[in-house]
C-alpha cells in the first residue's frame, strides 16, 4: 500500500529528484514507445506521416481516448465500468434516432448523448453505492441489460447515413488544421478530466478513495457522492462517445460499441492507471489509447500480419502491469531508505 500511496502523489513533486524521475518514467515511457513506433514505421513508409494517414489515425483514436478518460476516473476509485460499450451503443442509437427524426443541431445531439450516458452512469453508481454491489458485478450486469435494451429498441433496424442531417455528418468527417473535430472533442475532454483529477478537491478525493477507502472516509471524504460523480462521469463520456461513434461511421445498429470495454480497459492499464485504484493520470490513459491505435494502424504498414494486433495488445497489458509493479516496489524501497513515515 505504501508504494501505491506514494505514487498517487506523482502529479505533484515528492521532494526527491530521483524519485520524481522514477515516478514520471511512466508517461515518459509511453511517449518514448509512441515516438519509436511512429519513427520506425515512418522510416519504412513515409506515407505513414502523411496528412490523410494521421487524420485516419486520429479518427480511429477519438472514441477510445474519450472512453479511456471516463474509465480512468472510475478505476482510480478501485472500480471498473464494463458497461461503457453498451452505454455507447444505447446513446448512439438514441441520438441517431433523434437526429434522423428531428434533424437537431450538433451541439444538441452531443448534449443528448451526454444525458443518456449520465443516466446510465447514475444507474451504475446507484447500484454500486446504495446496493453495495461490487463494481465488476454491477457493470457486468448493466452491460447485459443495456445491450438488451438497445436490441429491443433497434431490433434488426439500422440508422443509415442518409437518415442523418448533413451538418452532423460534416461534423463527423470534418477537421480543422488537419485535426478531426471528433479528436478535438476528445482532447478537450481529456484536458478537462486531467485538470479535474489533478487540481480539484473532488478529483483528489477520488485518488484518496482509491488508495485507502477507509482512511478517506475517516478523513471526511464524502465517499458516496464521489463514487456517484465518478460513475456518472464515466457514463456521460461513454454517452458522448456514442454520438462521436454515430458521427464517425454514419451508420448505427444494435451492436454499436460491442466489446469496446476491453479495448478501453486495456488502454487505461497500458496507460499506467493501477487497476486497484489510487494511481494514474488521464494523460497516461490517453497516451495508452493513442499507443494502441497507433499499433493498430502501424501493423499493415510494417507488413506484420493484422492477426498479431490483439496478441500485441495482450502482451502490452502484461508488460505494463509488470512494469508498474516493478516501479512501485522500487519507489517503496526508495521511500523506506529515506526513512519516510508513509506506512
Amino acid at each position, binding site marked *: 500500500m505504501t508504494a501505491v500511496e506514494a505514487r498517487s502523489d506523482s502529479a505533484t513533486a515528492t521532494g526527491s529528484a530521483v524519485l520524481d524521475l522514477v515516478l514520471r518514467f511512466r508517461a515518459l515511457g509511453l511517449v518514448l514507445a509512441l515516438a519509436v513506433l511512429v519513427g520506425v514505421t515512418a522510416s519504412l513508409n513515409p506515407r505513414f506521416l502523411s496528412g490523410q494517414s494521421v487524420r485516419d489515425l486520429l479518427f480511429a483514436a477519438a472514441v477510445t481516448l474519450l472512453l479511456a478518460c471516463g474509465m480512468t476516473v472510475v478505476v482510480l476509485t478501485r472500480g471498473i465500468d464494463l458497461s461503457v460499450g453498451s452505454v455507447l451503443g444505447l446513446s448512439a442509437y438514441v441520438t441517431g434516432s433523434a437526429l434522423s427524426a428531428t434533424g437537431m443541431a450538433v451541439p444538441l445531439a452531443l448534449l443528448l448523448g451526454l444525458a443518456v450516458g449520465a443516466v446510465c452512469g447514475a444507474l451504475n453508481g446507484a447500484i454500486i453505492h446504495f446496493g*453495495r454491489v461490487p463494481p465488476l458485478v454491477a457493470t457486468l450486469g448493466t452491460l*447485459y*441489460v443495456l445491450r*438488451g435494451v438497445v436490441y*429491443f429498441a433497434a431490433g434488426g433496424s439500422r440508422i443509415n447515413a442518409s437518415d442523418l442531417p448533413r451538418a452532423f455528418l460534416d461534423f463527423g468527417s470534418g477537421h480543422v488544421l488537419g485535426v478531426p473535430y471528433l479528436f478535438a472533442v476528445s482532447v478537450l475532454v481529456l484536458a478537462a478530466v486531467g485538470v479535474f483529477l489533478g487540481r480539484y478537491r473532488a478529483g483528489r478525493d477520488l485518488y484518496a478513495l482509491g488508495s485507502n477507502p477507509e482512511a478517506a472516509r475517516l478523513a471526511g471524504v464524502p465517499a458516496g457522492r464521489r463514487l456517484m460523480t465518478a460513475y456518472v462521469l464515466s457514463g456521460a463520456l461513454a454517452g458522448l462517445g456514442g454520438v462521436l461513434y454515430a458521427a464517425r461511421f454514419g451508420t448505427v445498429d444494435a451492436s454499436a460499441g460491442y466489446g469496446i470495454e476491453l479495448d478501453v480497459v486495456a488502454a487505461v492499464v497500458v496507460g499506467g492507471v493501477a487497476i486497484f485504484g489510487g494511481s494514474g493520470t488521464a494523460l497516461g490513459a490517453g497516451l495508452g489509447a493513442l499507443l494502441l491505435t497507433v499499433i493498430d494502424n502501424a501493423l499493415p504498414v510494417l507488413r506484420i500480419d493484422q492477426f498479431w494486433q*490483439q*496478441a500485441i495488445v495482450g502482451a502490452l497489458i502484461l508488460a505494463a502491469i509488470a512494469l508498474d509493479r516493478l516501479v512501485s516496489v522500487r519507489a517503496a524501497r526508495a521511500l523506506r531508505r529515506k526513512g519516510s513515515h508513509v506506512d
Partner: protein
Amino acid sequence: MTDTAKTGPRLREAARTLATWDAAIIAVTAGFLIVASVSVEHFGTARNAGYIVLDLAPILLLALTMTLIVTTGEIDLSVASTVGLTGAAMGAMWNGGMALEAIMPLAVLLGAALGAVNGLFVTGFGLPSLAVTIGTLALYRGLAYVVLGDTAVADWPRPFTGWTLGRIGESAVPNVLVPLVLLAVICGVLLHATPVGRSIYAAGANPVAASYAGIAVGRLKFWLYVASGAMAGLVGVLWTLRYSSARADNAAGLELTVIAVVLLGGVSIFGGKGALPGVLAAVVLLVSVQNALRLAHVSTEALTVVTGSLLIVAVLAPNALVALRTALRRRRPTANGRTA
C-alpha cells in the same frame, strides 16, 4: 464494501442469506423446469433435454474451476480465449498431420500451460488477477488468430465429432454427460469435503490469516489457475469436435457468461463464500431459460436483460436483506421503549 463482513452477527446473517440464496436458486431452477415442461411445447422431451446438456456443457465445465478460483478471491477472465487458442492449436496440429489421439491430450496440456502463465503472473509476481487475465484474454485470443488466421479447420474425423453429439447406447443420455458429472463430482468433493477445499475458503476469506494458519496460499492459487487452464483446454477440444470446427473465435465472449453463472450461483466475488450446487443450478437455469425462449419463439434478446438483471439482483438481494434486518432490529427496541 467490506463493511458487511466486519462484525460477527452481520457475517453470520450474510452467511444465512447466502445459504438461502443457494437454496433459492435451486428451487427457482427446479420450478422453472417443471413450469416450462408443462407450458412450453417440446421442452420436456428427452431429445430437448439432450440439447440442453450439450449447450450447457462448456459453460458448466468452465464454471466448475471458475468457482474454485473466485472462491479464493481471484478471477480468470482468460478462459474463453484459452478455449479459442487450444482449439486453434488443435486445428494447426491436425493440419500438420498429427493423430487426433495425440492432439487431444496435447490440447489439454497446452491449456494447463496457459493457465500456469496466469498463475505465475498472479502468484509469482503478485499482480492483480483482474488485470493479468484481461491481458491474457487479449493475448491468448490474439495468438489464436496468429495460429489460424480467419480460416477454419473443419475436416475432423466423424467418430470423434459423432461421439460429442451422441447418446449412450439406446438411452437418451448424451455422452458428454459422463465427463460433466464426473468433473462436477470431483470439483464438488474437492471444494466441500477435503482440506484443499477448506484452504480455498480460508484463502478467500482472509489470505493473511490463511497463510499464518500454514496454508500455502500462493501455491494453492497457482494450481487452481493450472486446473482452470486445463479445463479450458478440455472445453477447447469438446467445442472444436462438437461444432466440428476449429476457429480462432471459438467461444469468444463466453468468459462473461461463465462469470455471470458463478455469481448468480451465489459465489461472492470477494471470495470465501459460495457453493457448487448453486452454481450448477444457475448454469441449468440460464441454459434452459434460453432454450425455452427459443422454443417459445421469444427473442433471445430478452435473455440478455434477464441475465443482467438476475446478476445484479443476486448480489443486491442479500445486501438489501441484511440492511432491512438491521434496520428492523434498530427500530424494535425503540418501539418497545414507547409501549413500556
